[in-house]
């Protein structure tokens, strides 16, 4: 399938691309060359710059430096539409089809087949059928409402839209993330048809096995720069690819674990037979003071839901939760917070922070009672305590009056954890604590969590990054399909075994590519997502 006839002259050449956002160089010298008829895979961790790169390519972002050569000519597309009209199409992770419109309407969106403003539905339906047939999906009817199609069907429509512009290069951003096994095979079939017509594909995926199957060459990005290009997709050893992507050994990031159980205190949390319809079933575990418990599992495995139910933010259908030996009946978040639970939720920005407000105000939010008398807030103590926590967490800049939206991801996460330090919680629930957090801040967060545990706080850590769970936790629960399928001390578990267990027990893959399990990809790199 690899097309070698055109090997000498790439259809796309990106050189030394630099893209700067306030405070961060998202792209810092990226080179990429793509040949006609090849599947060129783009690899890199979250935050390595893949998404930014394809946005630069599709003219959604303007690069500060660097050149793009398209079909032998240096180009500078002003708008995404210009890029599209030049034959450069992008299929984003979030499928950009409009549910209320028909298949044909979606395909010709923005360049409708019309006469004096009236849609010529006859010819657009006919042309849509031709394109769908070329993609090998004539079973999708042109008049059908797109909202009624499956994710796979929508993806085909998105691809058909690219072809309606005579695309010669299609960027596919994690197309397999929304598909199940058979559908992925169909997608690969379609991709092979396209490449044999000379269309080039830039294929982005976290799944190495897919890249081996469909890819021709690989370019690896790390920290916004190209670290390797033109690698053979079939024969490059996995270990080489991974070490290129991470460029470091993760082991040293984690603070040392206690050797024995002597430091563990009383049982603070006892979950028994907890179930929530459609989310998880029969979950039981216990947690002792000073212990770090890890929950390893995919998005959709029920791990976050378990955490939020324990926290009282969701109501269990059955099962009991006991705190400090006391079973609590009707649960609510305010009650949990009073009892000494704290949650750092999965989505920092949408679930935890008031972005427009200061660090101090974000930190004191769960403990306003302590900083007020009869409802009146005493300003001094609040800011003073926030400053103390800010210093303790080494928040940068160390100014508690600074607005949270101006902080980096790692520092924002520290604010969320700081909220519970300020409150003084006894059970800390951390959901994906290091997503979008750079390597340095990760190490700080890990040692912070370990320090808290040493002080007697019980911690539950949920993460899709298996190495993170294994490196940080004392004990690990493996979660798949809403059940706890394995429990063991983290010392005796191997990453591969955990991954195998998860894969064997997962029947369906969920559709959030960003939260996808990064098989073997250890934590690292700042986020630009």
């Amino acid at each position, binding site marked *: 399938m690899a097309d070698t006839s055109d090997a000498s002259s790439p259809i796309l050449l990106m050189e030394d691309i630099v893209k700067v*956002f306030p*405070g*961060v160089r998202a792209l810092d010298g990226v080179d990429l060359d793509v040949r006609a008829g090849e599947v060129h895979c783009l690899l890199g961790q979250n935050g390595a710059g893949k998404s930014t790169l394809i946005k630069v390519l599709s003219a959604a972002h303007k690069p500060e430096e660097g050149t793009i050569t398209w079909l032998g000519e240096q180009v500078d597309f002003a708008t995404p539409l210009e890029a599209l009209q030049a034959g450069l199409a992008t299929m984003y992770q979030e499928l950009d089809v409009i549910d209320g419109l028909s298949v044909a309407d979606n395909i010709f969106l923005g360049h409708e087949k019309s006469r004096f403003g009236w849609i010529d539905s006859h010819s657009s339906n006919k042309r849509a059928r031709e394109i769908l047939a070329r993609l090998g999906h004539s079973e999708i009817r042109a008049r059908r409402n797109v909202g009624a199609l499956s994710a796979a069907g929508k993806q085909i429509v998105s691809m058909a839209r690219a072809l309606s512009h005579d695309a010669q290069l299609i960027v596919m951003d994690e197309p397999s993330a929304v598909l199940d096994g058979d559908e992925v095979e169909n997608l690969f079939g379609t991709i092979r048809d396209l490449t044999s017509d000379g269309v080039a594909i830039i294929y982005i995926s976290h799944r190495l096995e897919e890249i081996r199957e469909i890819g021709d060459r690989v370019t690896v990005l790390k920290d916004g720069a190209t670290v390797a290009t033109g690698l053979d997709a079939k024969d490059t050893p996995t270990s080489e690819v991974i070490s290129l992507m991470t460029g470091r050994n993760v082991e040293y990031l984690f603070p040392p674990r206690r050797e024995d159980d002597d430091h563990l205190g009383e049982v603070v949390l006892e979950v028994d037979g907890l179930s929530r319809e459609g989310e998880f079933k029969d979950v039981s575990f216990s947690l002792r003071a000073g212990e770090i418990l890890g929950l390893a599992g995919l998005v959709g495995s029920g791990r976050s839901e378990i955490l939020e139910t324990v926290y009282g933010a969701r109501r269990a259908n059955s099962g009991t939760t006991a705190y400090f030996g006391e079973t609590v009946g009707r649960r609510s978040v305010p009650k949990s*917070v009073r009892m000494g639970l704290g949650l750092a939720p999965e989505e920092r920005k949408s679930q935890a922070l008031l972005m427009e407000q*200061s660090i101090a105000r974000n930190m004191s939010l769960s403990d306003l009672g302590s900083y007020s008398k009869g409802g*009146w807030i005493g300003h001094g103590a609040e800011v003073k305590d926030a400053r103390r926590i800010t210093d303790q967490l080494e928040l940068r800049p160390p*100014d508690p009056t600074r607005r949270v939206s101006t902080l980096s991801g790692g520092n924002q996460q520290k604010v969320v954890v700081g909220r519970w330090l300020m409150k003084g919680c006894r059970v800390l629930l951390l959901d994906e604590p290091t997503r979008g957090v750079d390597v340095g801040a990760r190490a700080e967060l890990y040692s912070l969590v370990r320090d808290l545990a040493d002080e007697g706080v019980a911690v539950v850590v949920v993460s899709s990054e298996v190495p993170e769970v294994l490196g940080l936790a004392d004990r690990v629960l493996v979660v798949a399909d809403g059940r706890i399928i394995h429990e063991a001390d983290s010392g005796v578990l191997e990453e591969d075994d955990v991954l195998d267990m998860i894969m064997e027990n997962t029947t369906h893959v969920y559709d959030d590519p960003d939260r996808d399990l990064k098989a073997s990809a250890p934590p690292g790199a700042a986020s630009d997502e």
Partner: protein
Amino acid sequence: MNDTATTVDQPSVSSDGSASLGERLSGVQNLGLVAVLVLAFIAGWVTAPENFLDANNFLTILKSAAVIGVVSVGMTFVIIGGGIDLSVGAIVALASVWGTTVASQEMGLWGMLAAFLLVGTATGLVNGILVAYGKIVSFIATLAMLVSARGLAQYISGGQTQVVEVNAFRSLNNGDVFGVPNLVVMLIVVAAIGWLLLNRTTFGRRTFAVGGNDEAARLAGINVKRHTMLLFGLSGLACGVAAIMIVARTTTGSSTHGELYELDAIGAVVIGGTSLAGGRGTIVGTILGVLVFTVMTNIFVLNNLTTDIQNIAKGVIIVLAVLLQARAQRGSDGGHT
């Protein structure tokens, strides 16, 4: 914007922590409103030199600002909390009618005052329950209340204007404190209480949290539903106070009181820099917004412009204010949405 908008350097903030960045920005915005007010005064002075700068005219301006100002203070809380209250005018009418029925008047001054405040608060709480626990969008819940509260006011009054026999109301309207009319004093008191409540209490802090990010507030342990309910109750209470004031001014209770107050109040709040998306706003801005409105109206009246022209101008002012605000926001915010 995404995570990429990290560590944007902002001008450093005073280390004593007394003013958050948000307060500073709104301070700048309020300066803009003061500038607009000054311009309006110049315009009034130029177009109606004799009448505008008269001391009595200023009192008239302040008195007409008083009622809508009180309503706007309540509205500010609801909007910062992420909602909207379209029913304020209708609640003012309902409270004014209920508090002036024969039965209420027989209870004397204090009974009437209690009726105004209770009816206002209770109606507001009904809004709040519908929004918080019934999960009806506040726009729709309060739109429905707008219609039914005014209908109820008409039903109770039988479509008749109810004349107030209790003399205390007349003296409330005519009296003054050190030369400041009582109604204006009431506005000042309400605004001061509102300011303290918003900026110095846990209630105010929670209002910003609920409006800024309700999910974060919920997961931080705040009872978001109860708080939302209370916000609408507070707005209703403000309407009850406004009903007292309007009854004092007109010595009547009527189902036609407070018509289109929702527009004036929302307009003033938005001009005052409060974000309709919630989570951001100030009482001072709202009061300035009310003043801008009433001064403009006063100038139009002095120049014998008809109400249609006034209304057109009002609409234009609102749009201009929002446009300017959006600009200022973009400038100060580094593109944060």
